């Protein structure tokens, strides 16, 4: 790579741990950052300025864009907030019975989805806005991802549930994580064929939603975010983000590294330099030209002194994110899938 990669730290970052970074679905340079300091901040990453900040009464564990002008965020105090980014107006949309861990938007069904430690997923109609149903999960929800009209929920006890957002009457698929340890993060492929799941013990699994034996044969898992010393140090893999164009993904671990993977050729495309502390969250923007990296200590070793929490913006190139020679590989997905994804 002869090109000089440009990377910079966001100004006026949160004062405590970062819980999530999320890019706007349409405006490639707006970024939401939620934090343990009870705020959600909106940044213009190109200008590197903070455009807005709003408060919760408790740490905000996740946030999401509904549309370019509305942010949704859920906090430890069980409140779900909708914030109008044009008028800077707050609305408390509703509550869970315990802290809200995940907030997602499903554009295909036009519904907001929240997952909580009260063992439930709730749907919210963003237009009213009001609650549109509560769906009990087998355990506390740790992570969630939307794949088209399907919702993939990862809970405590290593369980994975696939729901159909158009028909929430029953669970479409009940699975157990193929990894041995706690599920940290699940993100769906942009082509909606499957998902990637990361565990707390340095491992990532690539899984497919189609239950047929043929497709299920293709699933696999690999070790990553481990540092070889005298003993191998195994770090939690906290963050996954997909490149919307190439279907490649980035993972971030508590070792402070960000790796980009090509799931079709089972190759690592690149590794960025080591960040000062754990990677808590990652997000590619809508056109795949930028990646936001939240380097923020996650209390893996308890409440000890640690480097400053910060969010970085990095420009990524095709060389870093595009699968190599896709035609040569026998393991890549069928062409039909590829075109559907594009």
């Amino acid at each position: 790579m002869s090109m000089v990669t440009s990377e910079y730290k966001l100004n006026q970052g949160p004062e405590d741990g970062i819980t999530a970074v999320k890019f706007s679905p349409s405006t490639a340079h707006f970024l939401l950052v939620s934090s343990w300091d009870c705020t959600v901040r909106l940044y213009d990453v190109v200008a590197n300025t903070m455009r807005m900040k709003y408060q919760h009464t408790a740490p905000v564990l996740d946030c999401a864009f509904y549309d370019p002008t509305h942010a949704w965020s859920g906090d430890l105090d069980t409140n779900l907030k909708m914030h109008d980014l044009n008028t800077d107006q707050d609305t408390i949309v509703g509550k869970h019975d315990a802290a809200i861990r995940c907030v997602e938007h499903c554009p295909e069904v036009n519904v907001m989805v929240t997952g909580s430690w009260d063992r439930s997923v709730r749907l919210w109609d963003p237009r009213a806005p009001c609650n549109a149903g509560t769906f009990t999960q087998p355990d506390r929800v740790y992570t969630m991802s939307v794949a088209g009209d399907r919702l993939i929920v990862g809970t405590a006890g290593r369980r994975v549930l696939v729901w159909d957002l158009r028909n929430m009457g029953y669970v479409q698929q009940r699975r157990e994580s193929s990894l041995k340890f706690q599920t940290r993060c699940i993100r769906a492929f942009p082509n909606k064929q499957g998902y990637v799941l990361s565990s707390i013990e340095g491992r990532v699994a690539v899984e497919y939603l189609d239950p047929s034996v043929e497709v299920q044969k293709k699933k696999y898992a690999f070790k990553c975010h481990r540092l070889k010393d005298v003993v191998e140090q195994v770090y939690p893999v906290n963050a996954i983000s997909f490149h919307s164009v190439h279907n490649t993904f980035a993972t971030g671990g508590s070792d402070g590294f960000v790796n980009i993977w090509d799931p079709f050729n089972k190759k690592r495309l690149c590794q960025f330099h080591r960040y000062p502390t754990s990677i808590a969250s990652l997000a590619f923007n809508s056109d795949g030209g930028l990646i936001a990296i939240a380097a923020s200590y996650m209390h893996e070793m308890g409440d000890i002194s640690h480097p400053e929490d910060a969010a970085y913006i990095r420009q990524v190139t095709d060389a870093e994110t595009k699968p190599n020679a896709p035609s040569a590989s026998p393991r890549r997905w069928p062409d039909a899938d590829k075109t559907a994804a594009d």
Partner: protein
Amino acid sequence: MAEGEDVEWELCKENIQPLRRGRNMSALLQALSQSKDGLSPAILQQRQAFESELRLYNGDDPLDVWDRYIKWSEQMFPRGGKESNLSTLLEQAVTRYTDEKKYHDDPRYVDLWIKYAQHCLQRLDIYRYMKAQGIGITQASFYIAWAEELENGGNFLKADLIFQEGLRMLAQPLDRLQQFHRLLQARASRQAMNKVDDSDSDDETKQPERVSLAELKTRGKKAAVPIVRTGAAIKSVSRGLSLRAAPVEERSSQSSNSKVVIFDENKASAVPSEPKFEPWLAPPPARAKENEKAVEKWCDVKMRQKSKFGNALMAAPPPKPTFQPFVDESDETPKMTPCKIIPTVNNILSARKPCRDDTPLKRLLEHQRQQKEGETSKDPEKSMYCKELLFSGTTEFSLEELRAELYIKKKNSQAAVCPGEPATDTETK
């Protein structure tokens, strides 16, 4: 109000496992009221509170939390079973402090061990392990539990030895130990006596007994019945109860030693194996599926005709009782609903395999070995997060949950220091 609650309790009695300590009525009612569909939020919340306390406790008596958590679980999950997580909890609590010498004679810790042993199959092994580790060797309850287990296996001699060992160690409370020891000795001698009685019972004179439903010989014109109604006074027992004669004899010989016959479990277990000849019993229970006759068409089955020479071919009809024996209505119609046994779900209630490779004791030893190895840091891998905290108790915690618990704790303690804070907090809400 109280009545309705009582009924609720009566209805699910069979689902309540007995506890030695007894059950807290209000906890029981709470537990039963939610047992219909999953766990109630209140119970989940309490459990979560215990789980976080397990992780965040930083006093000098961590066993206290485990002890309270386990006692709470016993009360709140009256059915025992998997959802209570009791055996996991007990195993964790017990293995966690095997190296903590200060707990070895703690009655709570010994109690947990005994409870744990009662959840295992090889209880005696567990007790021997405890002895070898020096856990509970000054506690009377340990010896009592051990001896009880031996006694249940019929080994009075060994049970006695265990008590003697306990007495030698001056286990506390000593009077309780002595009391149980005396009781054991009493039971042992009584059993020995019973055995002697059984062997010489033939020598005793047989006392004739009255027979029920027998016809008596009458005397005189008025056909008066004699005062002594046994032995020779009986005209016949055939009327109606001819088949009863055998059981009567059997009974009279059994009860001949004129003592009150005490129900003996060991004997009783042998009884059902002897088939009793009682022709008018209700049809056999529907349990014996393999003996059931398949349903057939009856319309084209021919009755066998009598032979030309009268009834010679027919067997003589058995003597029918002259009265209708009473049969429980519920027994009368065994349900014949078709019941397919699907092979794939047939193993739902498979028997627990007694000699599985992974016995609790093995796990214990494994745990100890790992701890020792961990000290020498031979582990090929090292987890770079507080694994101990996330995975203790019965459920896992995520890093965020742990941090949230700490955050809330910190906030609460801050609010306690400056009580003005929360008021302003609610205003901003």
